[in-house]
């Protein structure tokens, strides 16, 4: 017998989902420390090069599948591997309400 799945809604993005940063969340240059930082309500998250590469493609127009394909081409990496990394990153942001999705 399997237990009922956890009540937590799935936050994984479907291939056609178009992620975007909701109002009150943005990526800016960190003029003092260098690099990019994600600013949201009462939080600042320093982005590494990978996070920056992902979020620079998150514009509300590109689908999840298109973002993966673009990153795979840019970094000459297998799409399956990229998809896993990007999914984890975006689900993490979505759980903190730093990312929204339109179908």
């Amino acid at each position, binding site marked *: 017998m399997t237990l009922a799945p*956890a*009540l*937590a*809604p799935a*936050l994984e993005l479907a291939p056609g989902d178009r992620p975007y940063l*909701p*109002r*009150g*969340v943005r990526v*800016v240059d*960190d*003029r*003092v*420390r260098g690099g990019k*930082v994600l*600013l949201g*309500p*009462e*939080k*600042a998250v320093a982005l590494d090069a990978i996070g920056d590469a992902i979020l620079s493609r998150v514009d509300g127009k590109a689908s999840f599948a298109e973002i993966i394909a673009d990153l795979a081409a840019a970094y000459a990496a297998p799409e399956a591997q990229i998809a896993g990394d990007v999914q984890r990153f975006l689900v993490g942001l*979505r*759980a*903190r*309400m730093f990312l929204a999705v339109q179908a």
Partner: protein
Amino acid sequence: MSIPPPIAMLAELTHRCPLACPYCSNPTELLGREAELDTATWVRVFGEAAAMGVLQLHLSGGEPASRSDIVDLMQGAHDAGLYTNLITSGIGLTPRRLDALEAAGMDHIQLSLQGTNADLADWIGGYKGGFDRKMQVAAEIRDRGIPLTLNAVMHRHNLDDLERTIDMAVELGARRLEVACVQFHGWAAGNRSQLLPTREQTEAAKRIVAEAEARLRGTLAFDFVPPDYYADYPKACMGGWGSAGLNVTPDGTVLPCHAAETIPHLSFQSVRDHALSEIWYNSDAFNAYRGTDWLPDTCQSCERKRIDFGGCRCQALAIAGDAGATDPVCSKSPDHDRVLDLLCAAAEPEAPMQWRQPARTPA
């Protein structure tokens, strides 16, 4: 030791507030309007803060909307490039002012919640009609789509309403809920025996938050500040003294945290006399408890010393009588018995609740 630049600044624009919450984090000696920095000085300080690396600005009080220049201050903060957060009870935020604050670049509102119904909330806030007004403001915020965090300050008298509090956060369209159990500084210190939750309430709160966090994932994010007297280890106050954030009080005094002025041997400098960066990097008060060199023996040998940095200095002073001691909340603290005594005393509080009193007006 290399000192990192601060990430966040709390600007306590005023101590004035229509509410009188008995757990207010402002000091018990409140400053009056005549002591407050003027608009131009605040805007200069916002610029200095941004230039030294501050990213997040919390405009707070008291009630920041009690400042007649709140829109100009918001604009100044926005123009400095800061992420702006208005920490408010909602009282004084008319639709027109909300429009003006939005136009001035306000990024986010943190709205306080004293209770889930008018009777409880107005009793705690000491302000009749405050709850109804707050609900109107919350609707105005939601209709405008302004990102909202609900800050529910929890204690013995409202922790049993936690589930309803969580439902309200969803109904009000908040993206985030802070379940902030009262920290015993400022006015709360004198009301500790009235406000300390019971151990049962504390355990229930942890369970309820964990369940709701899982159920509402993707709808509502949680920040949970549990009542630390029941914890085994202390909270790392401000993530370590002088490491991430600073407070500027209404008269321009710069502090490492809300309550730091309770530590009598420290003297704090003002933005009226010194550059903000000079105070952050060079002042004795900011360097007093930075890093780990100053830690007492109990902490030096502890594997958690870089996790909690000995806990809260103000709590160490308030309970153990020594700001340089291990936070007595820690189960390893030689003064931990005093916390247990306080919990016992709170089981049958003798002192009545004291609401916040306004600043004395100058003669």
